[in-house]
């Protein structure tokens, strides 16, 4: 009795995403599906959920083969999916989102909103989810939004629930709450698939761990039989350095100083609410925190992309609070942006054009308004070589590069200057392990050469691995500051606004 995927293969043009994958999930069992970005986990689950059709292979539920032509069929078969990027309509209420697609109606299609609310309240209380049916989703914190997704799944009486990277948006404390919910579902007899790249969590919650690599299942283990290092090795296929080797920092003068900064988001909320800190030359300061606590806007404000309404940002002795992005860039600040595809690169431009994106207006790339493309191409060729960017040539569109190589283009462009400050936001999000190692090593290298580095990341391991000092951001403020001896637990508490001596 249960869910079985047998021999699933899925081909996209030029890519074999799944190659003969087998997976079983029994009732009341939690299976963790581990693998690095691009291993094929999400593709597999999208097949299970009816969003893709397999090129070959079968999906069996309770021993019977099922074919899904769309999510509707999968839902009808009792499969529910909680997506990594929530499938919630931001402007709808919780109740509207939950009933979407399965609406209770009166005559003429008139919505029965009372029944909708009642259903939400019932499910919410049964599983301890505590959600207000009339709240508008975009006003809710991310952790609560995820609960709405879960209620959606439960409303349709799912027997099998798939969670796709569920903890990537949660604080460590919210993760605990999430695990309790999952255990409640398990106790109710649901079969659960938990997709992740976070080894520790998989080991904590799963009954069984299945590891995927390059579209295949390469191992299946019990959490009790294995440790994180071995797991990582299985995921990547070779021994992996989980630690970043770095020497003791030798911090110099203060390069970046932020004082009492207040920034509004697009809806005029104070998303950065009085932040102050410093970054010295030759040190790496990491800002930890779950997405949505103001880090994005903080970085945008420091780099000139978003105006602040109060406070000051200084670069060495100069007040750069109201300076434009270009002015800040010219003052030898490198910015590796969070939104690689939307901001960091222009996808329809070639690699060469992207390489000169920050320097096209200066000699030698241009003289006056005339551009010197020979110079540009020469620089691009040099940087592609130097930063190990895998591309057939520098004249291809940068959109054809893999995520990791795209990030290398950005890093090459930004670091290949005489810089004194690096601001890197989510520098290794969504890229392969090899590129992650590369980017980390370049960052440490820069720091050793006396550059001040500010890193913002929602991956706590990355912050802990790289930073000489750790700041934690929570609800627009810096909740805590630690040196590099801090543990993940201490950080985790701070990410919830609590210190060891109780809530602050």
């Amino acid at each position: 009795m249960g869910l079985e995927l047998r021999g699933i293969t899925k081909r996209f043009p030029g890519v074999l995403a799944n190659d003969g994958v087998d997976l079983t999930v029994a009732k009341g069992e939690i299976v963790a599906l581990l693998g690095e970005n691009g291993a094929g986990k999400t593709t597999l689950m999208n097949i299970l959920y009816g969003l893709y059709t397999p090129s070959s292979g079968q999906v069996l539920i309770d021993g019977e083969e099922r074919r899904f032509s769309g999510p509707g069929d999968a839902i009808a078969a009792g499969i529910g999916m909680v997506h990594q990027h929530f499938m919630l309509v931001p402007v709808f209420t919780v109740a509207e989102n939950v009933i979407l697609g399965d609406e209770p109606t009166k005559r003429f299609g008139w919505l029965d909103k009372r029944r909708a609310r009642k259903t939400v309240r019932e499910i919410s209380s049964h599983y301890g989810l505590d959600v207000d049916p009339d709240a508008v989703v975009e006003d809710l914190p991310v952790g609560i939004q995820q609960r709405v997704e879960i209620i959606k799944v439960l409303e349709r009486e799912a027997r099998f629930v798939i969670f796709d990277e569920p903890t990537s948006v949660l604080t460590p404390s919210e993760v605990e709450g999430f695990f309790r919910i999952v255990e409640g579902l398990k106790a109710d007899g649901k079969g659960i698939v938990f997709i992740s790249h976070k080894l520790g969590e998989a080991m904590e919650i799963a009954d069984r761990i299945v590891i995927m690599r390059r579209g295949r299942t390469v191992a299946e283990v019990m959490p009790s039989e294995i440790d994180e290092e071995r797991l990582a090795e299985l995921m990547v296929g070779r021994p992996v350095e989980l630690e970043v080797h770095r020497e003791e920092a030798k911090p110099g003068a203060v390069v970046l100083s932020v004082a009492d900064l207040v920034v509004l988001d697009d809806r005029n909320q104070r998303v950065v609410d009085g932040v102050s800190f410093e970054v010295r030359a030759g040190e790496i300061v990491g800002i930890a925190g779950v997405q949505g606590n103001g880090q994005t806007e903080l970085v945008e404000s420091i780099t000139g992309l978003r105006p602040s309404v109060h406070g000051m940002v200084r670069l060495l002795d100069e007040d750069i609070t109201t300076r434009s992005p270009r002015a800040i860039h010219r003052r030898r600040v490198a910015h590796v942006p969070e939104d690689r595809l939307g901001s960091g690169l222009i996808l329809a431009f070639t690699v060469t054009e992207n390489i000169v994106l920050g320097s096209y207006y200066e000699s030698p790339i241009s003289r006056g308004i005339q551009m010197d493309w020979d110079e540009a191409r020469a620089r691009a060729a040099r940087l592609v070589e130097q930063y190990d960017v895998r591309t057939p040539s520098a004249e291809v569109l940068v959109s054809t590069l893999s995520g990791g190589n795209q990030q290398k283009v950005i890093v090459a462009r930004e670091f290949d200057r005489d810089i004194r400050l690096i601001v890197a936001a989510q520098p290794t999000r969504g890229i392969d392990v090899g590129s992650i190692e590369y980017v980390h090593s370049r960052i440490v290298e820069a720091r050793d050469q006396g550059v001040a580095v500010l890193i913002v990341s929602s991956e706590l391991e990355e912050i802990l691995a790289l930073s000489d000092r750790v700041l934690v951001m929570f609800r627009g403020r810096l909740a805590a500051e630690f040196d590099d001896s801090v543990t993940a637990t201490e950080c985790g508490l701070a990410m919830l606004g609590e210190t060891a001596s109780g809530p602050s």
Partner: protein
Amino acid sequence: MTAVSTASDVKITARATPEQRRATVIGTVLLLLAGVVVWVFGLGVESGARSTFNLSLPGERIQDLSWAVNSRWLAYLVAAVVAFLGGWVLRRSHLRWTNLALAIGLGLFALAFLTWAAAGKSFSLVGMLRSTVILSVPVTLGALTGLMCERVAVINIAIEGQLLTAAFVGTIMGSAFGIWAGLVAAMVAGAILGAVLAVLAIRFQVDQIIAGVVINIFALGLTSFLARRVLAAAPDLNSPGRFASIKIPILGDIPVIGSVLFDHNMFVYATFVLVLVLHLGLFYTRWGLRSRSVGEHPKAADTVGIDVYRTRYLNTILGGLIAGFGGAFFTLSQVSRFEENLTAGIGFIGLAAMIFGRWMPLGALGAGLVFGFARAIQQKLGILGTPIPSEFLSMTPYIVTIIVVAGVVGISRPPAADGQPYIKQ
């Protein structure tokens, strides 16, 4: 664990938020308007001049209702109120009411303007309001078309072309087979163009604005071509009948309001009803919820099993039916004769009305009335004989559109997926 460190030597500055800056601009504008009212509308008329607003139309039960007012005094009064509003907005103490103050200020300015134009003469205010309602109909219908499409994230620039083609088809079929046949044919024509837009945008993933502009060019060219080749040869095909005015009993006899709201032809009543139906439909029915979800977050809709493509096709074609209805209004009620480029940009004004009305049916109605008023000014003031040259009066609706679009964008949010084709894996 250490406490949060603060940098020494902090110089704290506060800079204005966009809301505050906007309030400053609007407050200043209101003060300037007050100045114009005093200078031009107040001092610019003779001291004893009276503006007489007629409030009854010939043929009504109660006759000779009018309101005469001293032109100068009214101007001064308006100026005082507008100046007060301007000053109050400038204080930036209640930013939420800035827009309302602006709306009131503009409304009063319009009143002062009319008073000035009518100084020493009499002017049919009822006639003006009635024209406002009538002239607002095609704009509102255009806005409703636009919003039906945009609520499912399809930008419809082709409204102009839909109106024009429907007007053309309406006149031919209306002349040949009667006004009801003409109406139906016009609506079908609008729906067909809507289907073309849908196919281009959804199936072939043409850029939606390009597809819209193309359809407009095509419609203009085809209707002009056919008008010259076919209609010129057969003028009988260009004289359809008209839908007659129907006065609603009792309600239609109320002084002033009766003539303005309850004595119109079918098109006007249908527009009001349509606004209500769409409002209820979009926000209280399953169809509305699903449609809106497709426009806001098509992927979410897809993952719960809603057919995104079908919803988009359906709603775009329904929008086309509405546009067809609007096009029929031109030849089957108002002008009753097709001419080249009859619609003169009303489709685009409808788009502006849609944005102004925040993509809501009731908003579309309100915005349509505002534009209807601008068009009514263009017509009525020509008759009054003001010192303003007729060409400038003709510009009024278009300039008003520009101001509205410039002032309102960024304040109202379109459906989140607007303009993006949906690509299923």
